[in-house]
């Protein structure tokens, strides 16, 4: 089973929820494979404190033109949708930072003058947080715009074992990196806060999970601030509220240090296990209907 934790608005508590859920499952002898897909601002390692023993580069293939073979015909530039290769005064110029590495120019060059070299976009790191949690995350290189290839490589990097529950921490927002993070998940937990910003962005996230056809539930974090409109919205569209985490100074201070919710209040272990059982229940019920 793959559970993705996402939110439209940033800073609502995605990582807190994902890491605490993973720790709870591990304590209940359920093996977990944790994937931190927020490759721009990854934080789960701060909470799960894994030992890292595997490291690989994420590369894309960037064209290199052999000028001895190039006739300056310009076909490469013609087929590049991203304007990452241009031909000026008969000479090709490659802009590697905007190249998507699709290989179209290489295939189309009539002189076979283009070869490809790997260019690093980021790295993947993996290890274990404890005997029951396998951990992996990606890090986008600074200055590199494209997060999606790093996320998709991270997802493909290590195959989950059959018994493992995959917990994926997603970046904030609703655009392509989020789509890549939650694609293929069996369930999405949307973490929100009961404020106008939280509600506005929750509505967009719900549109996204609906478009992808992934069953979704909500966790209301910092419950007690703001207003009741998130609750009203969830009732109106029939979204289950799976858990509420109150706004509390002790929780805020603990998370600030890098503690899990289950470390701040051990009673949260039961609540996170019930959360997991609720999700299982929702998926079984859906499976029965289909």
């Amino acid at each position, binding site marked *: 089973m793959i559970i993705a934790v996402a939110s*439209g*608005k*940033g*800073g*609502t508590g995605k*990582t807190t929820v994902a890491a605490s859920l993973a720790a709870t499952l591990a304590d209940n002898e359920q093996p977990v494979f944790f994937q931190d897909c*927020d490759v*721009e*601002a990854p*934080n789960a390692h*701060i909470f799960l404190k894994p030992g890292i023993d595997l490291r690989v580069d994420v590369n894309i293939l960037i064209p290199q033109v052999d000028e001895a073979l190039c006739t300056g015909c310009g076909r490469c530039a013609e*087929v590049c*949708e*991203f304007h990452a290769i241009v031909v000026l005064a008969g000479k090709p110029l490659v802009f590697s930072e905007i190249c*998507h*590495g*699709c*290989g*179209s120019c290489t*295939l*189309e060059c009539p002189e076979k003058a283009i070869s490809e070299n790997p260019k690093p976009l980021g790295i993947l790191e993996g290890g274990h947080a404890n005997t029951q949690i396998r951990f992996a995350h990606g890090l*986008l290189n*600074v*200055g*590199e*715009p*494209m*997060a999606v290839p790093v996320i*998709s490589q991270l997802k493909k990097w290590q195959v989950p074992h059959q018994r493992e529950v995959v917990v994926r921490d997603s*970046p*904030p*927002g*609703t*655009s*392509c*990196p989020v*789509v890549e993070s939650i*694609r293929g998940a069996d369930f999405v937990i949307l973490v929100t806060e009961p*404020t*106008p*910003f939280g509600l*506005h*962005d929750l509505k*967009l*996230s719900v*549109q*996204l999970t609906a*478009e*992808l056809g992934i069953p979704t539930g909500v966790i209301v974090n910092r419950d007690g*601030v*703001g*207003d009741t409109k998130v609750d009203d919205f969830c009732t109106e569209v029939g979204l289950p509220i799976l858990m509420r985490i109150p706004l509390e*100074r002790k929780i*805020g*201070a603990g*998370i*600030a*240090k*890098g503690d899990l919710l289950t470390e701040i209040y051990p009673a949260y272990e039961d609540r996170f296990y019930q959360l997991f059982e609720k999700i299982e229940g929702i998926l079984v019920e859906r499976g029965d209907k289909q």
Partner: protein
Amino acid sequence: MKQLVILSGKGGTGKTSVTAAFAHLASSVDSPVKAILADADVDTANLELVLAPQVLERQDFWGGKIAKIDRDTCNGCGICQQVCRFDAIHLDAFIYEVDPIACDGCAACVYQCPEGAITMELQLAGEWFRSESLYGPLFHAALTPAQENSGKLVTLVKQNARLLAMDESYNMVLVDGPPGIGCPVISAASGADVALIVAEPTAAGVHDMRRVLQTTEHFGVEALVCINKADIHPLGAAEIEAFCREEGIQLVGQIPFDLSVTEAMVQGQTVTSFAPESPASQAIQEIWVKVMNLVLGGP
């Protein structure tokens, strides 16, 4: 004309609340700043929730292209699937189909298809708006969920803000940035004179602040830091202070945790207009004066 962008790395540190308060402060009658506002968080735009914009103009945003296979022309050879590096073409019941979400829009398949059965279709990916807000003109957008090219939309929003600023002699474009360090952040920061990083004194906040500061340095944008919710974790605040001192980055102020920030948001207002005497408002006001002087190059 100067460009100030508000960034954070980590989401939810208070970028939009700070930007909105700056917009309010910049609109006061004796302000030396005349600002145009741009919301560069195009997938989850929130500035509009506290600035009460009246939309004056709306435009479609055409994003990337997506491949489409014509079933009648396709001979089922499968070359498209072989050349696609984005795993976007699948064989489904003997028919090759493009997964529009996985498709990168590179068109490699279009050129390799021996039957000419594949065409590229432009995608309507959202809208952008020119509005008149409580505190001046606002350019903002709504990227349709699941769409690509947020960087392109950010650039479009900012370009239009700059054009109006130049036409009507505004002296600042105030840009509310997105979280992260990737494509929309790079678009938001590009061309900025100064980036103000709103940092949170948590372990995660400090980690991500460093990543965004590396990013602004990479692109040669001068960065300032302010700490939001500074008192929720004094050790973290001290770590940020020490870091800024070591790196020679100016720390322009600390905003205390203050529920009036959330109360203002619930009322659809900026904190400085809703509760001007609150500790957060006072701190933001001091930060604004410093940032404004640094950006304008004044005393």
